[in-house]
C-alpha cells in the first residue's frame, strides 16, 4: 500500500497565512520570530520529515544525532540563549513558535530541543554570571551539546509540581552539604535527554527538610562520579527523544553549581514550569496541526458519493472544528508566551490554560484526523497514527490536566498569579 498524500504547504491553518495581510491579527510576531518560523518550517520539511518514520520505528534507545547536529546548525539549541553568549535570543514566544513548527512534523524531535532549552533555564535564570559563563558557551560551538531537566521521581511525581503538596512529597532525592560540595542521592525518572545530555538541572530536597520543603536546584554534569544513566523507557510515542532514569549515588557537585541558593527551587520551578507549559502548548498545537494537515489533504483528494470528502457536511464540520481548535490553541500559547516573557512574578494562569487546552485539542484533532483517513489512518506510513500516539504524551509531561486544573483554579481564586 502506498500513500498518495503529499505535503501541502498552503492550508487554512497555516501559520504564515494567519499573519498575512489578508488575515490581519491582533498579534503580530516580531520580524525575527517570523524569520525563525520560516527557517524552522523549512528545516522540519526538508531535514526532519524524511527521517520521521525511521526514527519512530527505531529501537527505544536509538538516537539520531545527525538530526540534532543539523538542528544545532540552525541554532535550535541556542534559541533562548542571549546573543552575548552567541545565542539567538528569541525568548519564550520565539522558542514556542519554533517548537510548533517542529512538532507539526515530529513532536519527539521538537522535545529534544525543548528539553535542552528547559535545562538551560536553570542556568540562565540563576542570575549567576559565573554559572552562566561555565555552562552556556558550550552551545556556541559547532558540536551539539544537549541538556536536560530532572524533576520527576518514582514516588514524587505531581508532588514536585504542586507547591502545596511540598510537605507531603516522599522519598525525594536528597542534597547534603559537605564542605564546598553538595552530595546528591536519589533517582530521577523519565528524564527526556537524560541518556544523551552533557548536564542537567537537578532538583533535590536539602537534608533536614520535610518532604520537598527544602527543594534546591543544581547544575550537574552527567559525567561526574556517582551519576549513572539507566535504561531508556520504551514509549508508545515520542520515540526519537530518549526518556531515561538518572541515578545519583553520592554524586558530589561543587557548591557553585547551586541555582538561586539553598531551598529556593520552588519559586524557580514555578517560573520554569510556566515557560515549559508555553512550549508544550506549542508542541501540542503542532501535533494537532500536523494531523490536521494530513486530514485536510485527504479530504480534498478523496472522492465519495461523487464529491470530495470536504464537500460532505459531516466532514466539513469536522474540518472546521479542527482548524478552529488549532487557531485558538495557537492564540492561547502566544498570549501565554508573551506573559511569561514580560510579567513578574511569572504568571501561572496563562501557560496552564494554554497547555490544558492545547493538550486536549491535540488528542481530539489527531483522533478526528485518524478517523477521517479510515484504514489509512491506522497505518504507520500515512503518519496520522504517530500524531495520535504523540498527542497523549504532552498530556503527561510538564503537568497533567489535574495539576494544571489546580494551577488554574488557584489563580482564579487569587492564590497564584
Amino acid at each position, binding site marked *: 500500500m502506498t500513500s498518495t498524500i503529499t505535503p501541502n504547504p498552503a492550508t487554512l491553518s497555516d501559520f504564515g497565512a494567519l499573519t498575512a495581510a489578508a488575515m490581519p491579527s491582533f498579534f503580530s510576531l516580531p520580524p525575527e520570530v517570523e524569520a525563525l518560523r520560516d527557517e524552522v518550517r523549512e528545516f522540519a520539511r526538508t531535514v526532519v520529515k524524511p527521517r520521521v518514520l525511521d526514527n519512530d520505528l527505531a529501537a527505544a534507545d536509538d538516537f539520531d544525532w545527525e538530526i540534532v547536529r543539523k538542528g544545532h546548525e540552525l541554532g535550535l539549541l541556542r534559541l533562548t540563549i542571549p546573543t552575548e553568549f552567541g545565542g539567538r535570543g528569541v525568548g519564550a514566544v520565539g522558542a514556542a513558535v519554533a517548537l510548533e513548527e517542529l512538532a507539526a512534523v515530529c513532536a519527539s524531535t521538537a522535545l529534544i530541543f525543548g528539553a535542552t532549552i528547559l535545562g538551560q533555564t536553570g542556568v540562565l535564570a540563576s542570575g549567576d554570571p559565573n554559572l552562566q559563563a561555565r555552562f552556556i558557551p558550550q552551545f*556556541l560551538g559547532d558540536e551539539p551539546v544537549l541538556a536536560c531537566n530532572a524533576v520527576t521521581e518514582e514516588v514524587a511525581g505531581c508532588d514536585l509540581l504542586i507547591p502545596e503538596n511540598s510537605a507531603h512529597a516522599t522519598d525525594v532525592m536528597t542534597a547534603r552539604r559537605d564542605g564546598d560540595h553538595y552530595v546528591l542521592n536519589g533517582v530521577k525518572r523519565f528524564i527526556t535527554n537524560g541518556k544523551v545530555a552533557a548536564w542537567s538541572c537537578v532538583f533535590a530536597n536539602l537534608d533536614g527538610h520535610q518532604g520537598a520543603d527544602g527543594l534546591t536546584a543544581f547544575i550537574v554534569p552527567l559525567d561526574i562520579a556517582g551519576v549513572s544513566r539507566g535504561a531508556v523507557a520504551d514509549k508508545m510515542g515520542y520515540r526519537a527523544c530518549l526518556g531515561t532514569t538518572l541515578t545519583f549515588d553520592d554524586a558530589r557537585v561543587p557548591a557553585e553549581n547551586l541555582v538561586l541558593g539553598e531551598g529556593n527551587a520552588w519559586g524557580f520551578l514555578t517560573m520554569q514550569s510556566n515557560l515549559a507549559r508555553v512550549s508544550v502548548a506549542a508542541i501540542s498545537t503542532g501535533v494537532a496541526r500536523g494531523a490536521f494537515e494530513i486530514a485536510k489533504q485527504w479530504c480534498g483528494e478523496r472522492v465519495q458519493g461523487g464529491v470530495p470528502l470536504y464537500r460532505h457536511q459531516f466532514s466539513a464540520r469536522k474540518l472546521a472544528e479542527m482548524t478552529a481548535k488549532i487557531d485558538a490553541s495557537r492564540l492561547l500559547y502566544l498570549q501565554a508566551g508573551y506573559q511569561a516573557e514580560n510579567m513578574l512574578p511569572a504568571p501561572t494562569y496563562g501557560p496552564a490554560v494554554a497547555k490544558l487546552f492545547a493538550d486536549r485539542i491535540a488528542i481530539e484533532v489527531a483522533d478526528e484526523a485518524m478517523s477521517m483517513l479510515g484504514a489509512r489512518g491506522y497505518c504507520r506510513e500515512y503518519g496520522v497514527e504517530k500524531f495520535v500516539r504523540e498527542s497523549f504524551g504532552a498530556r503527561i509531561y510538564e503537568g497533567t490536566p489535574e495539576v494544571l486544573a489546580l494551577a488554574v483554579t488557584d489563580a482564579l481564586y487569587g492564590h497564584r498569579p
Partner: protein
Amino acid sequence: MTVAERRRRYVSDVIALHDRISLRGFASQVSSDSVLYRARRPDGLLVMAVRNDGIPDRYLLGIHGFRLAEYLRLRFASDEVAFDRALFAEPAGGHADEIHVLALDEESGTILRYVSLVGSADPVPMAPRDPDRAPFPSEVVHGINLFDHVDVDPGIDTSQIWEIKRLVHRGSRAGSDLVGRLRLTLELMLGFYTALSRVEPPVRIIVGDGEERVSIARLLRSLRDITVIEGTTPSLPKDDLMYPRYAYASRDVVKAFVVKVPQGEELRQLSEHLRRALANPNPLVGFKELVSQVGGQLRRVHI
C-alpha cells in the same frame, strides 16, 4: 569554601570548555569578502586569515574564548579578573579593524595556532607622531609613543600601521611532535604574510611587544628589520585582564618593538620561501633555508 578554590575551579572549567568547543563550520560561515587567506591541506589542516567584520558573532566568541583560555593556561591572563567578571571569552578590544589568522584542525574544529593583527583606532589616518592619534595597545602598556623613538619612512600614516597580538598555540596539544609544530608555525606564517600582502592600504609597519627570547625571537626568523625598545616599564592596572603578562615573577621582560614590513617583491619572496619550506620533506631544512635568506637588522633604542 575559599574564593581561591572557587576561582581555580572556574578557570579550570573555562579552559576545559574551550578545549571542547568546535569551530568546524568556521570556513563555511565567514563572509567570503572578508577572507584574506585560505589554505586547506590534505591532512585536514585549514589556515585562514579573516577580517573581524566577516566573522559571525558566535565564532568571534569562540576565537576570543580560545584566546582567553590559552592566556589563562599560560598565566598571562588574570584568573582573578576572569573570575570576578565571569569572563568566558576575552572582551573585544574595540579596534577599528582586526585580522584573525587561525590554523584549525578542520575535522575537530579546534584552533591549533592563532595570531591577530589589529589596526589603528583612528577614525581617519593620522601621522605616527601626531599626539592626538589613538595609541596602539602596546603603547598604552609601555607608556610611550613608539614613533617618538623610532623613525619611519615619511608618508606612512596610522592606517598602514598594525599591531601583532595574541600569538598562541593550543596548550593541550603542546606535546605534539617537533616537526608537526614547526610545520604549523610555517603554515601560520604563510597565512600571516599572505594576508599582509592583501591588506589595503599596504601594511608598512607592525608594532607589538613580547619577551625577547620568545615572541621577538620568533619574529626575527622572518623579519629582520626590527627595532626593540629598551628601558620601558610595561604595566597594566591590577584590574586589567592582561595584568599578569607584565608582572615579572618568572619570565623575561616584555619589550615593545617596531617592525618594518617588506613590501612588494620582497614580501612575495618571503611567502615563496615559506611555501618552499613547507614543500620540503623535512620542514626543518626548509625552515633553516628561510632563516638564512631573510635580510635586515635588529636595532635597539634605549630610553
